[in-house]
């Protein structure tokens, strides 16, 4: 392993199983669970920062630079889009006098650098600016949408991952059985269907044609958040769970299979360890790091991919907000939403890497 702790991590991410636990030094003493040394102890024992600390610090630094670059690129992109907020707002009623009046009002006569600096300098003090489209503070516009989408992503991500991992493990255990084969084919079939088609199918099944169980559109009273109206969450979340399961399922199945076929599992079996225990105690922990990476990727995919599902359900989330903002050339809102999404990417990446590191003891010990 090199000097950089995440050089090793990246290899973990390539979903290779961690080497046999049977051979791990920690395995000798059954009760001594792999314990994470406190940072101070680590520094004392190894003479350098704990890999997790340096990982988080390094990644956070990189993340901030990334966010800055993203904001710059997105701002530049908004400048390249034809038209501006004044024209977008006035639409077909845009006469030169009205455009001029509105451009003055919105401050669009300023150079792009002045607009960008105005935005950037407000950021550290939490001043996000006001929407060009309707003069509301950006935070007040975007925060409720952010919350709604966060809930949708969390619920469907959690549901999709739990079910996906469980089904994947079961399929791996029954490798080659009818159950395994049919689930694998089913997963492939679902993967091939676009998200919005699944959403529409869910609506047809549960809202409009077959059953009338849940609302097919998530009409939320402004000021209310989705947690106060959980019924509206059901179908969008169900659609996304269906979309998510196949990815997680395939990954979890492959990882568990690989672990199950490894020499240490064979060893454990030969020792007469019960089947469930082989799975839970030996195979699953080793299948965990790649699965964590998949879970992380799933959440990232959901965050970017809920736009279409939000559209089908008219769900008042961040995806719809972003589409609206781009249509309106509402730069402060675009900037905020993109930065929020980018920050989510950074945080999820750091978190998955840390979790993957925690799950693979060998990676925590420097070579």
């Amino acid at each position: 392993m090199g000097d950089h702790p995440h050089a090793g991590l990246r290899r973990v991410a390539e979903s290779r199983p961690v080497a046999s636990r049977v051979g791990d030094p920690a395995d000798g003493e059954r009760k001594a669970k792999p314990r994470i040394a406190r940072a101070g102890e680590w520094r004392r024992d190894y003479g350098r920062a704990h890999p997790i600390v340096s990982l988080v610090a390094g990644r956070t630094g990189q993340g901030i630079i990334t966010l800055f670059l993203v904001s710059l690129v997105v701002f530049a992109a908004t400048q390249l889009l034809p038209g501006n907020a004044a024209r977008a707002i006035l639409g077909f009623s845009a006469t030169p006098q009205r455009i001029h009046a509105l451009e003055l009002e919105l401050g669009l006569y300023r150079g792009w650098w002045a607009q960008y600096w105005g935005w950037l300098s407000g950021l550290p003090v939490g001043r996000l600016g006001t929407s060009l489209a309707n003069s509301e503070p950006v935070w007040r516009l975007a925060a409720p949408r952010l919350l709604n989408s966060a809930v949708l992503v969390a619920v469907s991500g959690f549901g999709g991952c739990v079910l996906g991992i469980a089904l994947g493990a079961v399929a791996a255990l029954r490798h080659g059985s009818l159950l395994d084969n049919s689930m694998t084919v089913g997963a492939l079939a679902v993967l091939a269907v676009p998200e919005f088609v699944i959403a529409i199918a869910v609506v047809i099944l549960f809202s409009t044609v077959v059953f009338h169980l849940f609302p097919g559109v998530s009409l939320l009273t402004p000021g209310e958040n989705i947690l106060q109206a959980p019924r509206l969450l059901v179908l969008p979340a169900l659609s996304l769970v269906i979309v998510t399961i196949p990815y997680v399922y395939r990954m979890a199945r492959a990882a568990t299979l690989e672990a199950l076929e490894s020499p240490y599992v064979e060893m454990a079996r030969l020792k007469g360890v019960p089947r469930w225990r082989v799975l839970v105690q030996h195979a699953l922990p080793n299948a965990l790091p790649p699965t964590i990476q998949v879970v992380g990727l799933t959440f990232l995919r959901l965050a970017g991919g809920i736009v279409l599902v939000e559209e089908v359900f008219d769900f008042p989330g961040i995806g719809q907000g972003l589409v609206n903002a781009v249509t309106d050339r509402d730069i402060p809102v675009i900037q905020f939403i993109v930065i929020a999404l980018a920050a989510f990417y950074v945080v999820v990446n750091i978190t998955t890497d840390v979790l993957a590191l925690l799950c693979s003891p060998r990676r925590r010990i420097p070579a």
Partner: protein
Amino acid sequence: MTEREFELSRRDLLRYAAQGAALVGTGGLLATDRRRVTRSSATAAMAPRAKRGGTLQAGLSGGSSSDTLDPQNWVNLVDGARVYSLFNPLVDFDLAAHPVLSLADELEASSDAMKWTIRVKPDIEFHNGKTLSADDVLFTFQRIVNPKTPALGAISLKALDIAHAKKLDKYTIQIPCFTPFSPLADILASYDFFVLPVGFDLKNPVGTGPFKYESFTAGQQSTFVRNENYWESGLPYIDKLVISDFPDEVSQVNGLNGGTLDVIDLLSADSIAPVRSGGNNVIITKGGGYTPFTMRVDQPPFDDVRVRQAFRLICDRDAMLRTVFSGYGTIGKDVFGLWDAVYDTKLAQRVQDIDQAKSLLKKAGHSNLTVTLVTSAIGSGTVQVAQVLKQQAAAAGVTVNLKEVTSSEFFGPNYLSWTFAQDYWNYYPYFSNVLQGTLAGAPFNECHTNNAAYTSLYKQAVATLDETKRANIAHEMQEMEYSGVASGYIIPYFNPVIDGYSSHVHGVVSSKTGLPLGAYGFKNMWLS
């Protein structure tokens, strides 16, 4: 099918919405006397079956975070729905798209059409309890023409000297004109002239409309409640009106069929079957709005009138309407103002004539013409009809290259400058449309028409109060548009409007203006 739909709606109308019915009945008659447009308030008895109460959920097409409640500066159609619920204009369109008095009790021009006297109805209350007076009307006009923030309507009021308007008594104002101007009723009915109280505050939008403001979130939803002091007695029937923005038609239909929504609007023909199979109703209206092809008459190749004529002959309008709207709608003859009393119904229907088109192009020296058509999803069916034109043009040896742009780019700096493009027009009475579109210097003159004879005819028309004379002049002008001399438009059809409503909603009617749901007549709707 179209006819049957309309008849059904008519019957509904007669049975349930007596008020609206009265408007249909009287509209045509009133429109014939523009000098003195008066009407006693339509106070027909409330239909026996109409029930009070309930919340109506409307899922309307369009909207974005730039949604506004400003009744003089609204842009998208969901804004329109909200504005029509909160406010009233002085003059409104009835269901046949003829101007009738709304808040105004009298609208009278001096005999030289140089002065207008406007009197509003007495005892009309704003939502805050204040009584509507002449001051409010003056304020309304001043706000529209405010030079710092001119509203869209300012353009159409150019002939009026608002700065010198004065109050005659508590309910009456008088506005002098710079030049004689007779079609004021047409203008005032045209969507942008809602009456506001002095000191109007957009944060607390107070109007005289059938519903009162409760909440509003741009791009999402608004909630209005019944105005119990509404001046049209007995209306509205519902207690609460919730209007939600819907960017996507599929979710509109799902919302209706799933029972979340009660009414939805502006559907494509593809949605008719799903709405019906969901046990809900469809209402199809022949509207007066249109999406013309716009050919710039000052740029080659369209500066040659024969090329413009050839392009009009290339169009198989039936096929276009069939492809885009499954045949619903009205075939056009390249002349606008479809429902106006001055619209010349005697103009012959133009049909496809490829040979004639080829020969015209040959005479103009453009036998193998290639043009670029800028298209964009700016109105329903615009991109599809552009594709149909491309195919039809190929038959005449004309290559039409389509350049599809986003609507933001379409309305960007090149808007009104494209050589060959499309546009979207709501229904306007004839002279109101001329004033905004085809007159030299008109604000939305996409085709850059500038015909001296045409302009002079317009000036004569707006200077006279004689209806017959005006209709004759209008016919002459329409002849010039029809022949292509003073027009660069191809108007293949007038768009139909397709709305859906749940079987427990009553009083949904058609408005020929093409504004959906009977020009957002939520006040006439009731729930069973």
